[in-house]
């Protein structure tokens, strides 16, 4: 037999019972060659036509591939060149809102779930276009459905742009007040060391060094990892760290191979000039029961995620995922960490409810592996300067450790610590976390940039 019955059943079980899916295929589209970038109308028209012509078959082809291999592709997405760069010649914040509306329209017409790239890269300083784009974010995200925005506020090389961190604190508060349950903030992420080929929303954008059209893939699979560890434990074989590491590596290898297969096939069907980019080796949870990073950590022997030992267990888990995945894929990229979007991970929500997982512990967890404070809800009376402080702390971790960190935070108007808010869909349930009540205002109000660390001077 070419495949043993065990192999065939393993694949089917992973897909049917353990929520193994391809989380996203994301088509990156270059917008830099707009012929007339200073006229809003001409630019909008170019943006619409370029994206539509590149992405119109994406969803249809992705569905055909789902059918062929029997594995679901949960999201189909588009990422574009950062709009603050492509649209740098636009003249007013209103122009940027108009572009966002047109992007929303083209995303709808292409039937994709989200479009990322309403982005500005301001890690060293902001251009006028960058400032206008940031200013337009509340209006743009409140009036669109599928547009996601990201701002890169720092890099290891350049340090942190504290002026823009302060500004973004205010923008987040403004956006939260314009959308029910601060939902708009779920579409806005701020980064340190943002990557150019990230297929995951809300941070996806098409990097300027990324070529013309690229298809990137993100796989999922916490459910499959958890189930494999559960079987290991049930068989009485979970006795040492290497038992766990080996199991995770094996599962990760298989998941990644499936992702690469699907990505290459969709890219091939889209044809010239689309090329296949990378597989993002991230464990991306969903609110589905069992599809949770928190559950995996608890299976390893933690009483509740957030207790002492959590950071070490997570570090080990993510490293094993990367090692298994790196062997499986020719091109690995994107964020390749573990996502712990609190609202989207049932195990994490439970941990917050129990009081074992706090904002501070999450911050520590992001230092070893995961991508950042993701989908964290805080009380509505959190001030802009406190939000900026939380952002600055998180991005400092990324800056010093030479890794990507991000903050996607929702100050839910009217909510108090301990409240639960159901967002619906893949966004899950928010558990509002308490924030340290002491003020950082005087620090945040200092002007200028935090310089890059000494170890960034490497030439």
């Amino acid at each position, binding site marked *: *037999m070419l495949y043993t019955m065990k192999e065939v059943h393993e694949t089917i079980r992973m897909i049917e019972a353990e929520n193994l899916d391809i989380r996203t295929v994301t088509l990156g589209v270059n917008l830099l060659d707009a012929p007339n970038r200073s006229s809003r109308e001409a630019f909008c*028209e170019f943006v619409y036509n370029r994206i539509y*012509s590149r992405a119109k078959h994406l969803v249809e082809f992705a569905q055909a*591939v789902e059918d062929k*291999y029997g594995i*679901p592709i949960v999201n189909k997405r588009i990422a574009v060149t950062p709009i603050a760069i492509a649209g740098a010649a636009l003249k007013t914040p209103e122009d940027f809102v108009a572009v966002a509306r047109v992007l929303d*329209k083209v995303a709808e017409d292409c039937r994709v779930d989200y479009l990322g790239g309403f982005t500005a890269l301001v890690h060293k300083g902001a251009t006028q276009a960058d400032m206008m784009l940031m200013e337009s974010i509340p209006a743009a995200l409140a009036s669109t459905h599928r547009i996601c925005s990201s701002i890169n506020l720092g890099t290891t090389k350049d340090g942190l742009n504290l002026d823009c961190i302060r500004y973004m604190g205010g923008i987040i508060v403004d956006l939260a007040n314009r959308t029910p349950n601060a939902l708009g903030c779920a579409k806005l992420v701020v980064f340190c060391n943002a990557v150019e080929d990230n297929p995951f929303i809300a941070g996806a954008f098409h990097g300027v060094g990324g070529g013309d059209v690229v298809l990137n893939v993100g796989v999922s699979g916490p459910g499959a990892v958890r189930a494999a560890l559960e079987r290991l434990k049930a068989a009485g074989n979970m006795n040492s760290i290497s038992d766990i590491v080996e199991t995770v590596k094996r599962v990760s290898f298989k998941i990644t191979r499936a992702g*690469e297969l699907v990505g290459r096939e969709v890219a091939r*069907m889209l044809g010239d000039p689309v090329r296949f980019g990378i597989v993002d080796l991230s464990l991306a949870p969903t609110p589905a029961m069992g599809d949770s990073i928190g559950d995996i950590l608890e299976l390893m022997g933690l009483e509740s995620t957030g207790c002492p030992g959590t950071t070490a267990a997570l570090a080990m888990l993510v490293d094993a995922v990367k090692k298994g995945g790196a062997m499986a894929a020719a091109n690995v990229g994107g964020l390749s960490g573990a996502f712990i979007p609190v609202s989207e991970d049932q195990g994490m929500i439970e941990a917050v409810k129990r009081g074992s997982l706090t904002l501070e512990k999450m911050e520590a967890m992001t230092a070893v592996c995961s991508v950042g404070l993701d989908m964290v809800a805080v009380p509505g009376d959190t001030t802009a300067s406190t939000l900026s402080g939380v952002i600055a702390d998180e991005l400092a971790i990324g800056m010093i450790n030479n890794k990507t960190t991000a903050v996607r935070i929702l100050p839910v108007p009217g909510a108090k610590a301990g409240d639960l808010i159901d967002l619906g869909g893949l966004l899950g349930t928010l558990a509002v976390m308490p924030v340290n009540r002491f003020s950082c205002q005087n620090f945040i109000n200092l002007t200028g940039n935090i310089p890059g660390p000494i170890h960034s001077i490497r030439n």
Partner: protein
Amino acid sequence: MKRAITENDIEALAREGKVVIDRDMVLTPSARESALRKGIQIVYATERTTAESPASAAELAKIIEDLVLKEILQSRTGAAKPAAPAPKTESLPAANVTPASKVDRHVVNEALASMHESDSMPNRAIVTVVGKNRPGVVASISSAVAACGGDLADMTQTIVGDYFSLIFVVDLQGVAAKGISFRVFKEKLLEEEARLGCVKTLVMHEGIFSAMHKV
């Protein structure tokens, strides 16, 4: 969270032979197959009848003009933001958007057809049948395979009590030669499954197994 639509839900959701899948729903593969089998059409809520045609020039101009400018004007008045240059309100010239392409249907069909000979990997399907054992199950599935031009490259079977599990490896060269697409091949086998009524059939391209289990 997105609601998973399973095989069981499909029938309950069907109205006049159609199931509308909105953005909060995810179809499981077996649900999609079940719909295929029962002739239920799956419609995506975001799928507009004009999905093939880009926004008309006038439509695009209208979005920019009506929605954007008006809303900004309204939101601006209440916003405690530094004063920005007053938004222009003069009407915009109609944007010149590519007219509705007759959409390259042939491009799509070609790409879909070429799924057969995707890469260097052999073109084979893995057909898994599980269910209650009864005489003739293997015969009827395998004759459905043969009718499409498929060649059984390998098979394995186990029977546990009343139940059996059967795996066919089907060479699809003959299927492709007959001009039958993978999708149609799958539909034919699922029709057979429906006729038998006592088994569950999964048809997946070999690629996924090869990728996951062969290094």
